[in-house]
């Protein structure tokens, strides 16, 4: 368990500034998710913490110790890679115990710790297999086992679930959350999937262009996005961001309304529009509505609602949940 602090961290690749200047604190024992679109610098940031990339400037402190110039193996971190990166010529047990073997731990201790890790991850039956004999989910578990066995202060995950299918991803998400609860360790997790971020994180750090756009608990980001980028990134379907008279009437340059914060009616409402397309998911109904003078609006209603393309409908946004923005910042509600 440890706090991770980044102070004035910069990273350039040649002339390209990937991370301009970044200060961030990741609380001890938290599950922090770095999220953002492709190329936003989240993976680079993780690799800087891991020591796989050198910082151009700034300091990285883990548990109060400056590790900026230390080798990855001397930082008390463990990393799980997107591609698993298992050692193909070693068995599962050898894969998990390799770090301990390099650290010249006694054989008996290596065996005990490998078995402990295998038990946590239910890998006992697979210890003698080679990686190529395992399924995707099992491989990912071995990769996590390799991390656990070192008892690091900080776990780093680089999009670990993106190679798994949807069902397995959901299952592994739950397992990772349980693992966090069990190990009570600091975990930093990189993903571009905001559902993963919302479901797993204590703290989400949203990045774009190497800059932290906002950090906070998932609900803080959902309820009070600091700027239009965060507003649009968090939530699915994404928030309706509307300009023009509808925004100026509300005293802002831009207003945001989440699709679930509308009341949909057939006979009365603030805005009138025509349904362009409707998705019936059973649990929800998502309608794409063209509203005159406002533009295209996405609406999500709980349960099955019998709307069809071409229907005329009325929408009423929940005023209490309206997000107002001027330029790049949020206006006080």
């Amino acid at each position: 368990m440890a706090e991770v602090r980044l102070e004035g961290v910069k990273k350039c690749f040649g002339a390209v500034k990937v991370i301009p200047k970044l200060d961030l604190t990741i609380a001890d024992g938290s599950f922090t998710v770095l999220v953002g679109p492709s190329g936003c610098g989240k993976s680079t940031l993780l690799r800087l913490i891991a020591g796989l990339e050198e910082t151009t400037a700034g300091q990285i402190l883990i548990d109060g110790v400056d590790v900026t110039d230390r080798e990855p193996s001397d930082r008390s971190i463990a990393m799980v890679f997107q591609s698993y990166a298992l050692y193909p010529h070693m068995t599962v047990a050898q894969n998990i115990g390799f770090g301990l073997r390099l650290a010249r731990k006694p054989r008996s201790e290596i065996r005990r710790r490998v078995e402990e890790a295998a038990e946590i991850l239910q890998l006992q039956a697979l210890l003698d297999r080679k990686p190529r004999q395992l399924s995707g989910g099992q491989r990912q578990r071995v990769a996590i086992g390799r991390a656990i066995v070192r008892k690091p202060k900080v776990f780093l995950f680089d999009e670990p679930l993106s190679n798994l299918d949807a069902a397995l991803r959901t299952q592994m998400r739950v397992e990772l959350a349980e693992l966090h609860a069990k190990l009570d360790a600091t975990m930093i997790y990189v993903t571009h999937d905001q559902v993963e971020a919302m479901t797993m994180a204590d703290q989400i750090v949203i990045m774009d262009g190497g800059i932290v756009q906002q950090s906070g608990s998932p609900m803080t980001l959902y309820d009070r996005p600091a700027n239009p980028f965060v507003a649009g990134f968090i939530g699915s379907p994404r928030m309706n961001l509307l300009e023009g008279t509808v925004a100026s009437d509300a005293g802002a340059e831009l207003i945001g309304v989440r699709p679930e914060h509308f009341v949909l009616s057939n006979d009365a409402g603030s805005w009138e529009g025509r349904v362009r397309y409707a998705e019936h998911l059973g649990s929800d109904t998502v309608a794409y509505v063209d509203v005159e003078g406002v533009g295209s609006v996405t609406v999500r209603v709980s349960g099955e609602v019998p709307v069809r393309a071409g229907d005329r409908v009325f929408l009423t946004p929940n005023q209490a949940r309206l997000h107002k923005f001027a330029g790049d910042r949020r206006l006080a509600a």
Partner: protein
Amino acid sequence: MSGFTWRSASRICVLLLVSSLIVIPLAATILGGFKTDGELRAEPFGLPDVWRTEYYAEIFADTRFWRYLWNSLVISLLTVALTLILGSMAAYAFAQAKFFGSRFLFSYLLLGLMFPFAAAIMPLFLTVRDLGILDTPWGVILPQVAFGLAFSIMFFRTFFKQMPPELFEAARVDGCGYIRFYFYFTLPLSTPILATIAVFVFVQSWNNYLLPLIMLNDRAGYTWTLGAMDYRGEYISSWNRTLAFMTMTLTPAVVFFIAAQKYIVAGLTGGSVKG
């Protein structure tokens, strides 16, 4: 089973033709050792009337034959070992480490590919003489290694570059540096390319005639290629003995190839990255 097709028939014909180019001379060599000289002249490709084993037995009993074979084996194995160690280490540095001048240095090494062996024989002789290793196995081994490095480094580097970079990163997090990674990962994961290069280098060294001819003067240090000449000189009309000798000397190279063959399969890295 599918029936007769002209396509498969023609394919079989071509394969038979190509394999006969190798099999017929090889069979003639092996069988020639069982024939008398007269029979060999009359019918070089047929089966012998009587299987005479005395020529083979004669060579078996000849201590010179074993000495030639031993000399060739020592030279070839040392050449293989040195080429694999030096070539793979150099290629590993070119593939994994970023350092100033690496491209230039690599291109410089590749220049060796364009240099014909025979053209360098005179300066090679002078260098070996100046080093004082003339008439020793090293006088053959070191030039062979030097000339084998260019192509082995090129092959090794291509193979090493295909290794997923995450493997090195994961190992680095586990506490593995460049040198440990080379021994723990690069070498064990490279058996296919190691075996391929080893076979090339071994066969080349085993069959090398020119270099031993120039560098070795003492009969005690002769390799089998020089030894074969020796036989031919002694029994100028005795082709059956020469063929028996050739057959016996071919065996180690064939055995070495068969032993290495099973490793010449790619795909060992399957399962390391993604599914």
